[in-house]
């Protein structure tokens, strides 16, 4: 096949491209320029977007021996990922920007352009498997990224090649070393790539301004805040409470309500939910409802057994055992064993 390999400059995408070549495919590498003003050097644990990362990607392509280009997707990334991230927080939800990037940029803008230019599919270094268009978990449970790919439609999955699925991260590094790829020991990335210093609250404050309001417990004001966007369901630190809790136990954010600028806090037990309602889902491997399956409610989170039923156009998920701190805006991803069934954005939980 003619494949387009998205190369971030990290070890995973470099090895994925190399494995695709070794499998006999005709591979072309592209680095996605996602920032209007890229930093010269990588900082912190961000995995992309600096010129140093672009150089790492081009070096890997040269070593593998494939053509390499840079595609400017900064405008798409700004509109679909960064602006969406800010808008979601402003609306009191907790978005996952990697999901959005996969949904709107890597497997939409890039895939569309690749298909138009005559490529058959896109190769990425995600830790997950696609076999015959069916998405499932990576061989490395600790690195599994099926959660952030669960938003892909069957049509997108049909044009997706994930060579790293059978490999653990350690194996990937070994494969990189064996191929002389200098990125073999490059640190893993885990911060939000467009927030250079990792200060999400500061990033949001600079875009949304200060929006002071009350922190409330049982209808009683117990503190103030400078913007609901600084709070996520389940958060314990930085609540700035001025009234100590009656039971002397820690307080957690239970809900975030941006219109009334109210952050509601309470004891840990109040974080437990057993019903999750979602927006309309994307079925990656369609099943009839009701469906007994498992659900993952955040990236790298634990799975819960549940029964999914229709709730309007969305799902209602009845959890067998309660889940703690479920934030609206995150994805609920249904699994049948290791196979991804589908995904939907969490609307509310109780």
């Amino acid at each position: 096949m003619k494949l387009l390999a998205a190369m971030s400059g990290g070890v995973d995408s470099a090895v994925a491209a190399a494995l695709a070549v070794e499998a006999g495919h005709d591979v072309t590498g592209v680095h996605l320029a996602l920032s209007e003003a890229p930093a010269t050097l990588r900082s912190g644990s961000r995995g992309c977007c600096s010129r140093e990362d672009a150089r790492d990607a081009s070096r890997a392509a040269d070593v593998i021996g494939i053509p390499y280009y840079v595609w400017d997707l900064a405008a798409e990334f700004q509109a679909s990922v960064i602006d969406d991230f800010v808008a979601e927080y402003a609306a009191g939800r907790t978005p996952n920007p990697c999901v959005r990037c996969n949904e709107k940029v890597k497997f939409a803008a890039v895939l569309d352009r690749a298909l138009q230019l005559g490529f058959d599919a896109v190769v990425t270094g995600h830790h997950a498997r696609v076999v015959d268009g069916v998405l499932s978990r990576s061989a490395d449970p600790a690195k599994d990224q099926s959660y952030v790919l669960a938003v892909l439609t069957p049509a997108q999955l049909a044009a997706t090649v994930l060579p790293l699925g059978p490999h653990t991260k350690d194996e990937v590094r070994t494969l990189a070393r064996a191929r002389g790829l200098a990125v073999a020991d490059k640190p893993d990335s885990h911060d939000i790539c467009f927030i250079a210093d990792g200060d999400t609250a500061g990033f949001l404050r600079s875009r949304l301004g200060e929006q002071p309001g009350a922190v409330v417990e049982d209808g009683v004001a117990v503190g103030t805040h400078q913007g609901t966007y600084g709070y996520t369901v389940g958060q314990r630190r930085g609540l700035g409470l001025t009234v100590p809790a009656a039971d002397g136990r820690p307080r957690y954010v239970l809900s975030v309500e941006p219109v009334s600028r109210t952050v509601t806090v309470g004891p840990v037990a109040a974080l437990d939910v057993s019903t999750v309602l979602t927006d309309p889902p994307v079925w990656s491997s369609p099943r009839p409802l009701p469906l007994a399956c498992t659900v993952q409610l955040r990236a790298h989170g634990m799975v819960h057994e549940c029964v999914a039923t229709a709730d309007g156009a969305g799902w209602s998920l009845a959890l067998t055992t309660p889940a703690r701190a479920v934030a609206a805006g995150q994805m609920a991803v249904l699994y049948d064993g290791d196979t991804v069934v589908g995904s939907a954005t969490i609307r509310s939980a109780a």
Partner: protein
Amino acid sequence: MVSTAYLDHAASTPMLPEAVEAVSAAMREVGNASSLHATGRRARRVVEESRETLAFALGARPSEVVFTAGGTESDNLAVKGIYWSRRRTGRTRVLASAVEHHAVLDAVEWLVSHEGASVTWLPVDDLGRVDEDAYLDALSDDVALATVMWANNEIGTVQHVRRLADAAHEFGVPFHTDAVQAVGQLPVDFAASGVDALTLTGHKLGGPLGAGALLLGRDVACTPLLHGGGQERDVRSGTLDIPGARGLAVATALAVERQPETAARLSSLRDDLVKRVQDAVPTAVHNGDPADRLPGNAHFSFPGCEGDSLLLLLDARGVEVSTGSACSSGVARPSHVLVAMGQDEPTARSSLRFSLGHTSTADDVDALVEALPAVVERARR
């Protein structure tokens, strides 16, 4: 890929065999041209003969040749050095065309952001030629420096350098020109052109990479960028790159000597390319001045296509071209040259430059014309 059609000579053209020989020979010799012993004198002789060869080829005096590490350094030295020297006299405005190479453009912008300069960007017409009325209006006795390139690296349009330089001198304004694309393709005579400073570089004319020169009039004050041993009349310190200077001089002399036949051959090949591209892709728009342009340059917009998609698809077919301008991270941005000529962003992003040089043949043009229609069809949005 079995064969490659290299249509990117404006990026870098192959070294002339004579230049390779000259560089290799110089590399076998030991010597610092600043040393006082016999070995040093031998080295100095090579440098000074190279300086004379270069000066003679370009109508300059040997003392007007400042060897540098290439076009970007020469442009920076001229723009910043002349500005700094003139700033002391209260002149702080820089006139520069909107279509300059980034080595001039960004140097001027740096002077504005860091060194108290102001700038008047000179507009161009839809062929990319500087608007002379606007230029004359902008000239006055607060101007430190005017800089307009000899011929544009993207769209090939040739500027009326002599007239622009004469007008500058009426206001006591020194005039710099970036002639990187012109030397070897057009007749270039430093003295006859009337300019005060002229940038050239080796790898665009058959010489080595990393070797260039600034021709700097004897009476033009220029503050150095590099301080040190005082080489190159105190304007550019640093131990001379003797193989580089030698290769540059040999290549320049040959390129200038062969310029009339090169220009005739390349413009005929280029005219054939232009006609056949227009026949093969009727919607293609040829940019720049149809007549008064670099002999090896053709530049097209392909409406409805992304230039970098065209480049990728041609590259896969062994046809090597350029989208015009790329920043250091390799991202293709809409060309500032085309935007200055009044093109909208989608049109500016849809363009490709095809540039011919001394090794170009009809086979290269054939390969392009054969590949292009299917590539344009595929890349059309």
